[in-house]
């Protein structure tokens, strides 16, 4: 008991009597209550009153007992306090809370000086718990607060009025005793700063706070001794009144500066290893640092954001000042912003991206931007989510978003399977659209809100229009679908490709399910880009806007974005394709345009741009010249991304109008089909198309090229398909390469993991 070591200016016998009275002698130790009683008795004795049990309560207005603590005592006190670890809260009885920080020894010396002036301080200390608004529960925070009180303008502010009243209720102050303990140890605010300073160097022992919650002057003295901490202390004091764990502005600024030294980007992370190094400098035991980490790493990602870092820093400071670590992170330390997008969790990204609402958004920063065939599904999933969003927005009756539950996580490591909204028969929608068109209805197909949605999508898909997804759609689709794209353009491409694929012969080119209109941006993007580029270059028909889109950033490896939408898409695509196929002479590229235009139209308005019909052979021209200016214009405006305006062709737009705003992939396909439709003389072909569409919907109908009306058209379509094939093949190879790279990375990571487990024999 350090208490014993305190020299009281009393006779020994008085002291013995005191001890006896307070029960310490009986108990053999100074419990908290004993301590307080003893102090009071000391005051009584020092005041000259006879030492009696009743004197405790009867004597009011006692001057605070005066203690002369020797340096050794303080040091021992410190030592004692230090020994008590986090569990100290309750065990402060009789132990003056150790001054925060390691430099306690030094503090001892300082406090020694301060002991004298303590007068009221001392008295107040024990009494403070009694009087002060008890926030007893966490001693640490309470301590914090007490501490703040101290510094605040000297003892005068102490609510501890006078010794007398304090003592009276001290019996009930058990709860407050903890506060008292806290008080003792509540030098925290000031110390933090000093301690931090110590982090960088050796603990500035001299700067440590006065041991006892001495008078403010002491602390002030200490503070002045401490370098560059005064400001912080004051800060702390003023701010901690309300919340012991609140970080003051100065503190925060300090923390931020420290953060910058490790990580200049304030929005970035501090990796675990760097943080470990940094906090190890604080010389706290690893166990406590580990606990602090657990508290402050809010998102459990192994890295610290600025908020987390400040919280951790704050906790370390508190701990060094003697505050016990809380079991839970205090609210004021909780990171305010949890930037989901920055979280390392890839899983969050899709959601983020998906609901960002803008298909053109690139996948979250962390998502690999690698369009890969094998990763199309994840990407598809991601995009599908986006699609989902669209559909929800459009709230078309037909677009009841259903999720494909068959999506198999492309990335087994990612437990997150993005719900892939199953396209509500985009083909059907397309069919409807086409039918509408066929029926000569205005291109405005305002029937289904899907169209509207489609138009939204189409806007981005415009680009794909250029892709002549004539007959080779299937293949193209396959490829395109494999692309990972996060933006609509990609999706559009997917649509196109998908449709092609559907209409084409081989339903499943690459994606597991028949490459349904893959809303996956990745797919469409990369594929569409290539396709567009290819077609535009090769065919020249495409709009000049070769989709110069970079390979669609693979939306995070999403299991199967495509599956769902893809499924539907194919249907739609098929339908579209069939339409297109039925009219091979129709400029194959038209369909794409059509699709795009459709979407665009919807976006802009439901004005049907079916006027594109004439634009048949010049799909690329269509976009611009299409009568469906609204659509085309929309497209132009909207699809500045890779998807060129090729599909600006109004005709496609018109056609696309009918398309439901389904996943982008279908769009392109749809457009294509639609454009084809539009191109073709509507009457017959429409009917044929419908029939064909129906057939196509069921399976991938090969685009009936029965009508050899226009050989040129057929040849053109063939050429387009070949181009598409080449593009897709190239894309495939690229994706394969990416896949290999990723696999290599994975292997290396696994190796590292194994290395971390040296003894693993498995």
């Amino acid at each position, binding site marked *: 008991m350090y208490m014993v070591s305190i020299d009281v200016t009393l006779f020994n016998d008085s002291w013995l009597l005191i001890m006896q009275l307070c029960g310490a002698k009986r108990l053999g130790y100074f419990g908290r209550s004993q301590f307080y009683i003893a102090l009071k008795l000391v005051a009584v004795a020092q005041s000259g009153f006879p030492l009696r049990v009743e004197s405790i309560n009867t004597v009011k207005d006692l001057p605070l007992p005066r203690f002369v603590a020797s340096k050794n005592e303080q040091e021992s006190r410190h030592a004692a306090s230090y020994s008590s670890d986090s569990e100290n809260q309750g065990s402060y009885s009789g132990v003056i809370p150790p001054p925060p920080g390691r430099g306690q020894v030094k503090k001892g010396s300082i406090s020694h000086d301060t002991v004298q002036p303590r007068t009221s301080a001392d008295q107040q200390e024990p009494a403070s718990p009694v009087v002060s608004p008890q926030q007893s529960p966490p001693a640490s925070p309470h301590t914090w607060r007490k501490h703040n009180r101290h510094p605040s303008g000297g003892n005068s502010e102490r609510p501890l009025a006078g010794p007398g009243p304090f003592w009276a209720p001290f019996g009930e102050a058990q709860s407050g005793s903890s506060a008292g303990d806290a008080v003792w140890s509540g030098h925290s605010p000031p110390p933090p700063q000093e301690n931090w300073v110590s982090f960088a160097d050796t603990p500035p022992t001299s700067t440590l706070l006065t041991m006892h919650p001495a008078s403010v002057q002491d602390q002030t003295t200490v503070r002045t001794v401490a370098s560059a901490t005064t400001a912080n202390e004051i800060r702390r004091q003023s701010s901690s009144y309300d919340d012991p764990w609140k970080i003051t502005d100065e503190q925060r600024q300090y923390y931020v500066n420290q953060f910058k030294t490790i990580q200049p980007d304030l929005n970035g992370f501090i*990796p675990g290893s760097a*943080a470990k190094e940094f906090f190890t400098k604080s010389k706290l035991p*690893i166990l406590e640092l580990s606990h602090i980490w*657990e508290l402050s790493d809010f998102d459990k990602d192994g890295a610290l954001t600025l908020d987390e870092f400040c919280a951790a820093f704050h906790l370390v400071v508190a701990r060094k000042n003697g505050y016990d670590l809380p079991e839970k992170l205090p609210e004021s330390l909780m990171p305010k912003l949890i930037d989901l997008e920055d979280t390392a969790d890839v899983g969050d990204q899709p959601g983020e991206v998906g609901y960002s609402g803008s298909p053109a958004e690139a996948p979250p920063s962390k998502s690999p931007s690698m369009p890969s065939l094998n990763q199309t599904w994840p990407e598809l999933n991601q995009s599908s989510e986006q699609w989902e969003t669209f559909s929800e927005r459009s709230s078309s009756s037909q677009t009841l978003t259903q999720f494909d539950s068959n999506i198999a996580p492309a990335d*087994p490591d990612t437990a997150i399977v993005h719900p892939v909204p199953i396209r509500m028969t985009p083909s059907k929608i397309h069919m409807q659209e086409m039918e509408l068109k066929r029926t000569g209805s205005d291109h405005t197909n305002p029937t289904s809100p899907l169209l509207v949605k489609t138009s939204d999508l189409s806007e981005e898909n415009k680009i794909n229009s250029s892709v002549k997804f004539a007959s080779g759609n299937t293949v193209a689709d396959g490829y395109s679908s494999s692309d990972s794209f996060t933006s609509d353009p990609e999706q559009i491409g997917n649509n196109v490709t998908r449709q092609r694929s559907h209409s084409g012969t081989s339903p499943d080119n690459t994606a597991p399910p028949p490459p349904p209109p893959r809303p996956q941006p990745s797919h469409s993007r990369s594929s569409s880009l290539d396709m567009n580029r290819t077609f535009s270059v090769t065919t020249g028909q495409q709009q000049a806007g070769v989709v110069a889109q970079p390979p669609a950033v693979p939306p995070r490896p999403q299991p199967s974005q495509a599956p769902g939408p893809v499924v539907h898409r194919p249907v739609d695509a098929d339908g579209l394709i069939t339409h297109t196929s039925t009219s091979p002479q129709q400029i194959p590229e038209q369909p794409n345009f059509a699709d795009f235009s459709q979407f665009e139209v919807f976006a802009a308005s439901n004005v049907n741009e079916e006027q594109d019909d004439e634009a048949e052979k010049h799909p690329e021209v269509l976009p611009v010249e299409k009568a469906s200016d609204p659509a085309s214009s929309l497209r132009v405006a909207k699809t500045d991304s890779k998807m060129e305006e090729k599909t600006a062709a109004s005709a496609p737009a018109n056609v696309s109008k009918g398309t439901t705003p389904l996943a982008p992939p279908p769009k392109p396909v749809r457009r294509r089909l639609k454009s084809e439709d539009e191109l073709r003389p509507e009457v017959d072909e429409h009917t044929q198309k419908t029939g064909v569409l129906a057939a196509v919907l069921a399976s991938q109908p090969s685009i009936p090229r029965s009508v050899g009306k226009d050989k040129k058209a057929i040849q053109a379509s063939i050429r387009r398909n070949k181009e598409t094939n080449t593009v897709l093949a190239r894309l495939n190879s690229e994706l394969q390469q990416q896949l290999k790279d990723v696999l290599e990375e994975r292997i290396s990571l696994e190796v590292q993991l194994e290395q971390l*487990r*040296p*003894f*693993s024999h*498995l």
Partner: protein
Amino acid sequence: MAVPLPGDKTVVAQNYPLYIRSVPTESELKFHYMVHTSLDVVDEKISAMGKALVDQRELYLGLLYPTEDYKVYGYVTNSKVKFVMVVDSSNTALRDNEIRSMFRKLHNSYTDVMCNPFYNPGDRIQSRAFDSMVTSMMVQVC
């Protein structure tokens, strides 16, 4: 509890325990022994997978083997960290799903522990959060 459910949760890596916790602490040694012997069963189950990819291997190993007194459940992570749970046979209320969910929680907590840069893999787990999670889980069961 009168008949405490011997909930012994053990986290074992490289075949030495990282963490052992049992509700009736008096028979802790017995649980140590049981866990150790069950390691063989776990290894056997793992190797039974053959060359199957880790992905295809299920993490939850299920009931390793029952004895007259208790049942042992196993779970192994992708990094070959084994979780072994010994429960009293008299407790029939515990269903497989519950065991699975408990293992999942264990795994999640273990992952959190691993994320802590101050934790050296291979150390005994001293995380308070982990402790509290295990305690709450065992209290639930008992």
